[in-house]
């Protein structure tokens, strides 16, 4: 495989990781705990989309090799992931009286509950959307890149969502309030911002993006109850690399970790005996190294929105 192809794969995988990282980072900064249920929120999104796709899969024309029904399913996946997260926040996290470590442990319990419920309903096996697998785009093959329209769809959709988030954060009142609250919650309150509402919106957006990431991960690989938990640590690596609490840092970290992950085969190509099976391990080692050397991440630990 060519380096270009690794880069292309990296772009696809990065798109997914970026979507997941943003939400994890947002919640980390505003709710002040490492949310171990974030990966399983992705899974919730993927399965919700799967169910929806079963109903609307045949719907409409195709766009980027995907039926319009897929995008409906994507929207539902995002919505359900957000809803589930909001319900959890309102009825559980809000009522907790423990420190951030206690919250972290609680979120592990939440992750297991999500996953268990999904497993009851759908079993533990891998499933797929059942969209016909496409042939690589002819145009790119001479360059040594085997990439399908679906891959392009993932990149484009992620780019649209990221751009949308950027617009929201920079140019809307809600976005500014979110950044303000993440930056300085007590001053936000003093300024008259209803912080609890902003917190809820943060959960909605963070979990919604995670849901989208889950749907794309399902399209890229397969869907299984463990998909989210399995990728969670990679997402943590991205968030920590980018700097916890920084949305744009999470984007950068997600991009880098996704790329590094898919570029691992180069190591074997140049004779270093570390195979693709260690792609995740490399991300984890980078994560630990960043924690040690630069705990604020490469973006430098500035507040959200920087």
């Amino acid at each position, binding site marked *: 495989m060519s380096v270009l192809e690794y880069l292309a794969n990296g772009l696809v995988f990065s798109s997914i990781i970026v979507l997941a990282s943003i939400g994890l980072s947002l919640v980390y900064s505003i709710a002040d705990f490492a949310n171990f249920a974030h990966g399983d929120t992705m899974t919730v999104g993927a399965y919700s989309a799967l169910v929806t796709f079963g109903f609307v899969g045949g719907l409409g024309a195709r766009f980027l090799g995907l039926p319009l029904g897929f995008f409906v399913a994507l929207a539902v996946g995002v919505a359900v992931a957000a809803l589930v997260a909001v319900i959890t926040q309102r009825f559980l996290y809000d*009522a907790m009286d423990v420190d951030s470590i*206690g919250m972290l442990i609680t979120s*592990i319990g939440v992750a*297991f509950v999500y*996953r*268990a419920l999904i497993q009851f309903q759908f079993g533990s096996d891998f499933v797929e959307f059942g969209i016909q697998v496409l042939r690589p785009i002819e145009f790119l093959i001479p360059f040594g890149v085997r990439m399908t329209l679906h891959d392009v769809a993932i990149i484009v959709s992620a780019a649209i969502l990221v751009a949308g988030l950027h617009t929201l954060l920079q140019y809307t009142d809600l976005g500014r309030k979110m950044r303000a609250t993440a930056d300085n919650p007590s001053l936000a309150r003093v300024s008259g911002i209803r912080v609890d509402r902003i917190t809820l919106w943060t959960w909605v957006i963070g979990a919604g993006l995670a849901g989208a990431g889950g749907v794309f991960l399902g399209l890229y690989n397969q869907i299984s109850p463990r998909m989210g938990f399995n990728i969670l640590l990679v997402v*943590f690596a991205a968030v920590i690399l980018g700097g916890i609490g920084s949305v744009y840092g999470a984007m950068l970290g997600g991009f880098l970790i996704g790329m590094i992950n898919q570029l691992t085969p180069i190591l074997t190509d140049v004779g270093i005996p570390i195979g693709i099976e260690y792609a995740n*391990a490399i991300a984890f080692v980078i994560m630990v190294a960043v*924690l040690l050397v630069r*705990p604020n991440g490469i973006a430098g630990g500035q507040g959200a929105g920087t």
Partner: protein
Amino acid sequence: MSESPGPDADADAASAGRFGDLTPTEQGVLVFVAGLLALLALGLVTGGLGPTYFMYLIGLVGMYVLLSFGLNAQWGYTGLINFSVAAFFGLGAYGTAILTADNSPIAGGISPVLGLFVGLLLAAVLAVIIGIPTLRLRADYLAIASLGLAEVVRLIVLNEREYTNGSAGLRGIPGFFEGWPVLSTFPQAMPGLRIEIVPGSPIVLQQPFYQALLNVGLVFVFVAITFLLLRRVHRSPWGRVLRTIRGDEDLAEALGKNTYAFKMQSFVLGSVIMALAGVFYAHLNLFVSPGDFEPINTFYVWIAVILGGSGSNRGAMFGGFVVIAIREGTRFLNGIEFIAFDIGPLRLLAVGVLIILVMRFRPEGVLPPQRELIWPSALDDADVPGPGETQRPHATDGGEQS
């Protein structure tokens, strides 16, 4: 007051003597454990539960108690969030398996006793390797980093086939007492027994039962040694420093304690105990595979410790019981026709719900630690007020300590 380490908190369930002396929680725990044992005994006499399987369960309880002890020595004593329990457990199991298993790509056929030491040594080395970078981290970072490093270990075991046999795992591991005089042939030597308590459902004891009995004996010895060791080291100046670090690391530093060194000791100690559980498991199950490194195994142990009450050894024992109740109870429920669920998700749900409930309603655990961390016999000798106005005798557990 019942939850604070007050003066009247010295008695533990075993030495208090009368049921009425116990706090309502302690009574509840006692009833739960007794009920569970009664249920098992009922299953045993009615033939619903094979005697060999019964012994196997007891062995597993012991294994989880060991694992909980190990995590307790890290999280409970010192506040170290170690999410790599499965890595140390797995390493202990692989350490002995690689020396003793039939299909080990490296050795095989070596005495399990040597395997035991290799398993513990591997875990100690890994603990130092993981500990050096991570023990300086903030608590939540330590959690994430240790989970990540545990995954690295799992991936290595899974992929380095020439050393570990990869996903095929290691088979043909001998029982722990292989090659020992008397004990190695004990199961064969024992006569078959047939006990009929409930007419029509006799309990048949044959060779596998005696093998399982040996295993229970082994884990009992492991648990007893660990318990005595922990009790000796915890109620001491060393244990006090750990608890101070857990409460406030800066304070411990300001009082002249090298907190990094103490954290490392606590981390290594706990990890070695986890590896001990792994060694036992390898010789109980006679087969190990990379699946033993799965993170879910880490969280089983976590639920045992936070449920029991972090820092409390009797809590860890209780937690070990509950985890087995979850693991095997779900299997049992699955047998009932009209609520036939998959075992996997049911267990996961039980673990998840239990974590949430504990953290929501009783974050300090069911049986939080109640002892003062003072060398027990010194407390008896010293010319200071006793442990409180209730004047409960506390000498019952002090004598054998020194």
